[in-house]
């Protein structure tokens, strides 16, 4: 994983626009959040391999970054993105890691299922 360069991500977002894609979208505080600190509220959500098509999308912010994708009927949104899997050429694999390196948020797009 490499720190995000927003210009590169924008190119990738544009390349994937207007076609049938599968999305993995995730946000998580982790299963141990309230075990380690009872004041914390444990919350996680993910959806994997939902079928989507977006007409436009962009990356924004100064880092951590936000991505918004305008789908045919609504929106996909992720905030807190810091890293991209630079080895992936066909798929867009974005993640947000906290100061301890833990994954907080993930946004992934692919023409094939994950």
């Amino acid at each position, binding site marked *: *994983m490499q720190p995000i360069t927003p210009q590169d991500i924008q190119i990738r977002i544009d390349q994937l626009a207007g076609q049938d894609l599968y999305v*993995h979208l*995730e946000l*998580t505080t*982790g*299963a*141990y959040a309230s*075990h*380690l600190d*009872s004041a914390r509220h444990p919350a*996680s959500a*993910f959806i994997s391999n939902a079928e989507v098509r977006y007409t436009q999308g962009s990356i924004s912010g100064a880092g951590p970054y936000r991505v918004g994708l305008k789908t045919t009927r609504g929106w996909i949104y992720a905030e807190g993105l810091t*890293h991209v*899997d630079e080895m*992936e050429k066909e*798929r867009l*694999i974005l*993640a947000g*890691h906290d100061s*301890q*390196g*833990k*994954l*907080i948020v*993930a946004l*992934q797009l692919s023409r094939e299922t*994950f």
Partner: protein
Amino acid sequence: MKNQQTEHQRILVVFPHPDDEAFAASGTLAMYIDSGAQVTYACLTLGEMGRNMGIPPFASRVTLPAIRKEELAASCLAIGIQDLRMLGFHDKMIEFEDQQRLDNEIMALLKELSPSLVITFYPGYSVHPDHDATGAAVIRTIGRLSAAERPLVHCVAFANNHEQAIGKADVVVDVTAFLEKKMASIRAHRSQFQAAELVGNRELTYEETRTRFGTEPFWTYRFDQSGGYET
């Protein structure tokens, strides 16, 4: 306490995540294996929803399953586990799985291996929903066996309230003699072990390591007559 070093020749371990074995039971397993026991580790998932991705992160949601699979194999090698079964369930989803499918897989292992000891999580007192659901499935399935067929079940528990509810561990294994293997097992989980709440990035002294990892507590699960949960 029974003489564990020699009593169990065939042991089945059922945990949901690669690295559960490392923290919860690797010293105990290394000890049993040193006495000649055959250990089968049924690991339900590949931990593919884990949040630790290495520091700096070297894994993504896409690459994590393969990475954790390798780490799991390396950990088993460090402990000496002879038989690793990866059951292919999805991380975080154990409590939502088809219960029948889950139970059937566990029952098949019990029938095939006839273990005298099964190690799993204590349902309800193991923090992570996957841990609790795995323990519940093991207890449920073993509860279906006749009392004479049932193996001994040692459960791992670490919820904040566990001692109030289930008392102190009745089996506390001193694994000091197997600390090297235990730490090798923990370190094999390369994407996980740097996490601050686990080992952190600082080299622990031997004394710190022994204090922190030198004993492994277990609770013997007590089935009621019908095999169900004790209340």
